[in-house]
């Protein structure tokens, strides 16, 4: 079973990201679940959402305490919340940031992760090319597909079109595809710890 934990702030689409991830994996024929932690709900407050993906029915309904993949939608949380708590050995980390991994001051965490399992890229900036609001979730899900290979990009796109019918879904799917291509190309070209300064 794969367990994914998504961190961000209220209003950034963290809960939606978990739901879209589950929808995409379901399209791929997996068993999935997605749910947020139930806490104070206000713009800007730290928010956590969870997703599980498995080949068979999932019985657990608990919050994810030992994630295999960590998605960080807001890098300002890196030193405010215990983001990396319980991260599995060999796990993946995906961070929305225009800074390099070195500039994020998370060396102690990076040293415990496998080569090629960490990616920081400016997902908010990338999405602004497709939609007016800098919601990082769509590009991050495209990057998730490229980094982990756990879900197909086509399924990510179909989940977005199902959740947001019309042009918004199409634009989100395009943003996810751009992120996928970007991360996949960078992984191929530069295996190892991945970091990028810019989306373009």
């Amino acid at each position: 079973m794969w367990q994914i934990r998504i961190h961000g702030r209220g209003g950034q689409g963290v809960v939606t990201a978990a739901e879209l991830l589950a929808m995409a994996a379901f399209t791929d024929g997996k068993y999935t679940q997605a749910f947020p932690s139930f806490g104070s709900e206000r713009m800007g407050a730290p928010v956590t959402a969870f997703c599980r993906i498995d080949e068979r029915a999932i019985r657990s309904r608990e919050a994810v305490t030992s994630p295999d993949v960590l998605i960080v939608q807001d890098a300002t949380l890196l030193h405010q919340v215990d983001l990396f708590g319980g991260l599995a050995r060999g796990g993946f980390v995906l961070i929305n940031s225009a800074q390099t991994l070195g500039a994020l001051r998370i060396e102690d965490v990076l040293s415990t992760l496998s080569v090629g399992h960490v990616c920081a890229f400016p997902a908010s900036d990338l999405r602004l090319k497709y939609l007016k609001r800098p919601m990082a979730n769509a590009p991050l899900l495209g990057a998730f597909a490229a980094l982990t290979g756990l879900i197909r990009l086509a399924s990510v796109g179909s989940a977005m079109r199902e959740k947001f019918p019309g042009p918004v879904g199409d634009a989100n799917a395009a943003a996810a595809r751009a992120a996928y291509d970007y991360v996949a190309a960078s992984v191929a070209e530069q295996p190892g710890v991945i970091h990028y300064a810019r989306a373009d």
Partner: protein
Amino acid sequence: MRVQIEGSQAVAQVVALCKPEVIAAYPISPQTHIVERLSRKVKQGGMECCQFPTEPSQVVVMTWHAGTNQLRSHEQSRGLRG
């Protein structure tokens, strides 16, 4: 056939199939999506016999319990207060 559905949407569908006569609505997290879905169903038709009073508190919703015997009610997970 397997279908992916949000839990709240599934609850709303089942409630609609039960053909309630009254849905006293006080949406609050985490049951907001259930009431949202039911309000749409009532408005769009298919539940013509159902009243959908919107109420200012969960306590007022409770008073509908006293007056009806076909009532659907959702409270927030930490329970009623006040």
